[in-house]
């Protein structure tokens, strides 16, 4: 399938939904890993929106990436409850260990480090979501273990 066909398939799945832009953008990100600039005009046309409308929405929500992510996406919680149990130390560790700042993807395309404010695991912090899976009671060693496991799962 071409990119256009894949995008249209996502849109088709939400045809008739009210205000379907967010579900469609989620669908596109699930399909491609990110929302490429080039799909914006197509989405706009199909939903009868202006491309500026779509651009405004894509840039408002922090979930929508404009670049492909690394193999392992780590979302570290930095909200208060996790801060209370040392999330900032975990962030420092991750930045140092993987050579990326929060908000960046490593040049080798392995790890994308992102911050998130609250994963709803506030009694078991510090928490992180790694490739969509929630982990609690993290410390540097446990985090490394999780990242390694995810990396292996993605590459094997």
């Amino acid at each position, binding site marked *: 399938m071409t990119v256009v066909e894949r995008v249209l398939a996502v849109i088709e799945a939400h045809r008739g939904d009210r205000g379907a832009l967010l579900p469609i953008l989620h669908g596109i990100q699930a399909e491609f890993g990110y929302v490429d*600039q080039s799909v*914006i005009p197509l989405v*706009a046309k199909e939903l*009868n*929106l*202006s*491309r*500026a*409308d*779509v*651009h*405004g929405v894509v*840039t*408002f929500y922090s979930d929508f990436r404009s670049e492909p992510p690394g193999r392992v996406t780590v979302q570290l919680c930095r909200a208060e409850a996790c801060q209370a149990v040392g999330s900032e130390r975990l962030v420092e560790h991750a930045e140092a260990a993987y050579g990326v700042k929060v908000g960046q993807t490593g040049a080798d395309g392995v790890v994308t480090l992102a911050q998130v404010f609250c994963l709803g695991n506030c009694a078991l912090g510090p928490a992180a979501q790694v490739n969509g899976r929630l982990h609690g009671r993290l410390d540097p060693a446990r985090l490394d273990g999780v990242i390694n496991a995810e990396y292996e799962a993605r590459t094997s």
Partner: protein
Amino acid sequence: MTILKEPDFGTPASTSSTSVTVEVDGIPVTVPEGTSVMRAAATSGIDIPKLCATDSLEPFGSCRLCLVEIDGRRGTPASCTTPVADGMKVRTQTPRLEKLRQGVMELYISDHPLDCLTCSANGDCELQDMSGAVGLRQVRYGYEGENHLSLEKDTSNPYFDFEPSKCISCSRCVRACGETQGTFALTIEGRGFESKVSPGGLSFMDSECVSCGACVQACPTATLQEKSVVQLGMPSRTVLTTCAYCGVGCSFKAELRGDELVRMVPYKDGGANEGHSCVKGRFAFGYATHPDRVLSPMIREKITDPWREVSWEEAISYTASRMREIQAGHGVGSIGGITSSRCTNEEVYVVQKLVRAAFGNNNVDTCARVCHSPTGYGLKQTFGESAGTQDFRSVAAADVIVVIGANPTDGHPVFASRMKRRLREGAKLVVIDPRRIDLVRSPHVEATHHLQLQPGTNVAVVNAFAHVVVTEGLVDEAFVASRCEGYEEWAAFIAQPENSPEVVESITGVPAAEIRAAARLYATAGNAAIYYGLGVTEHSQGSTMVMGMANLAMATGNVGRDGVGVNPLRGQNNVQGSCDMGSFPHELPGYRHVSDDAVRTVFEGVWGRSILPTPGLRIPNMFDSAIAGTFRGLFVQGEDIAQSDPNTAHVTAALTAMDLVVVQDLFLNETSKFAHVFLPGTSFLEKDGTFTNAERRINRVRPVMAPKTGKHEWRIVCELAAALGYDMPYTHPREIMDEIAALTPTFAGVSFAALDRLGSIQWPCNENAPTGTPTMHVDSFVRGKGKFVPTSFVPTSERTTRKFPLILTTGRILSQYNVGAQTRRTANIAWHPEDVLEIHPHDADVRGISDGDSVTLASRVGATSLRAVLSDRMPVGVVYTTFHHPVTGANVVTTENSDWATNCPEYKVTAVQVALRAQPVDAADATEATDELAPARERAVID
């Protein structure tokens, strides 16, 4: 006057009829329910500080400067988003509010360049004003914090710059683009502190922006600023006038610095546009001072001679003496005149008077002949008045809008914005057009039905609508019984099976079910309004179609109130006015037939000359007569007939055959190639008079500058009349209007003084309607009873064949205007450098044509070449082009067919063949070829 600043009440007016009384700072004020506290305060003369609020946009509540205290309410609500309640007590100035407002301004200024003294908006900046208003004295945050000062300026638009470092994120531009213009080309990108205005992540020029100027208008700072203001500085005085492009007739503030026009700003109190504009009226006025303009009169004996600049006296006496010579040799009827829909009512009136009183015949016609003459005919026959039924505002009350043969977003953009706003509010849309125009589907607007009919089958479709109405019991019986006549005969005709959707399906190509559904929607809407354009009139059955629409509206009771009607979208700024002024050879001003003795007697009494009781020659008849040798002298006011009228070869032959052709125009146009006298005309910026727009609204045109030619056009005509021995001793155009008013019952109450007082007047304006008539035919039709006229569908004789298998239809594009004489002399050329041929991918494919290929377009009468653009807007079998560039010669191929009743040319249906050009020519070759073929090629449609 000095610079005109319109009051800004902050939020739009409430339309409620219930009023409430509140107290603002101790002052009682009574306002309609739903009014904001801010507007109520402004009404009582108290300006609450504001930045994100402006009365052209819905309240937004983002800047938080307009906070007030209200007794009994917690906190400090924003006055823009808080509606008044009866008995409310509001305080707008307290120490607490003062501190909060200073706090807000402190935040703004902490992220704003400190270059007020060198800023182009200095003196016209709301941020600057508010700093003063709230008494900001210091910015304790300093200027070293996070900021947006290094954002890059976008200068891509030819008319305005976008300087995001000065942006205060009030979203006024974004909201104006959506709410006012309806394009949604702007958004806020990002969020939080990173929120910034963005044309969809692109440059302005690459974005969806249509350059209407609404964002520039809305911007409270210098972020969006006209380049002309940056270059020339802030204007210092205002002249209120009227746009001279399309029939919408927008009111503008011409803003000058000294005697230099800096910018045109749409006027909020303009009845037609209510503060909105399009790229042409707002920005494309540079042609008025273009070096191509001719400023001195010129004459020559023969058209092969070079032009010779002469004095006005010489030019006029030369013209007069040659006119008299011709009449002496060939009879009184051997000369005539053509009036212009580009000129003022007063200028037009004196030309038709020149013809009728000084020439002594009725050989006067106008360029409306080739565009909306069927409107005049059709609406006169059915309703009794040759004009649209509504004002533009009426569209806001429509529940169903039917657009037939019109492309408002390109042709009448400011009205289109009003229409789109109503559609976004939920009104339903039916588009009847061969082409998928933008209205069919564009951001936030979608037609319920698009009837993509075969060109030339309008009447079949409208008959099928009426058939459904009559046979399905959808007739408004009460309306028909009390208001109309001829119903029984018409109903019997329309109910015949030949008019059923099922039968016409094979003719129109529109599925019967679609027609039935659309007809039911129209008939059961509540308020259903028809808007139409040249896709209705420029057909062999143009007049029939106009009557067909009138029949449909009467049968469903959709005439005579807000939100309904039959509404022509007029092409030129003063088509309505030029027709009103007696420009047709069979009618005196006010659409009264020359055979009416009583009317003639009135005119003869005032004019002091007898008027012929028989119609004169229409434009095509003039040409025929010229070739036959009985018509030999022509005065042409501002119309390029050699370029715009059909059958160019025939036109040029006629012009060549004449002894005297007098052209009055801004530029040496195609017609002037055949002229003996050239009388330089004035641009709208120099004119003093009135234009009448498509809603019968008479607007003042006020001079922004003195005539560059040294003479007003009306005066030229008067002097010519005098030289012919007939005095028209006006000293000012207001006297001309006074005469029009005295002679024309529908204009009885119109005068320059009344216009200055009321702003504008929609005729009829007389004792019965002293402030004019927004909606016509309210209690009864102008002709008494509305008349049903059977409208039999007769196919055009233009047919596709094996040799000419495609149908060509034409239209226009937003940035250009008509034959482009004006817009091509402005930066608007950037948006539309060439006309292209839109062709369906299937039609292109079978001909081996790819997107961008150069193709030949040939009809039975001619051929031209242009670039192909593959487009699924077209149905298979139909191709489309615009006619803005003479080089394209789009109308070389159109035929001589015309509307049976009015001779309006059938520009919209031409059988053609399209083929890939063997060898694509480069631009230079194309230009050369054009010059050679100019007379044959440069022919286009005027509307």
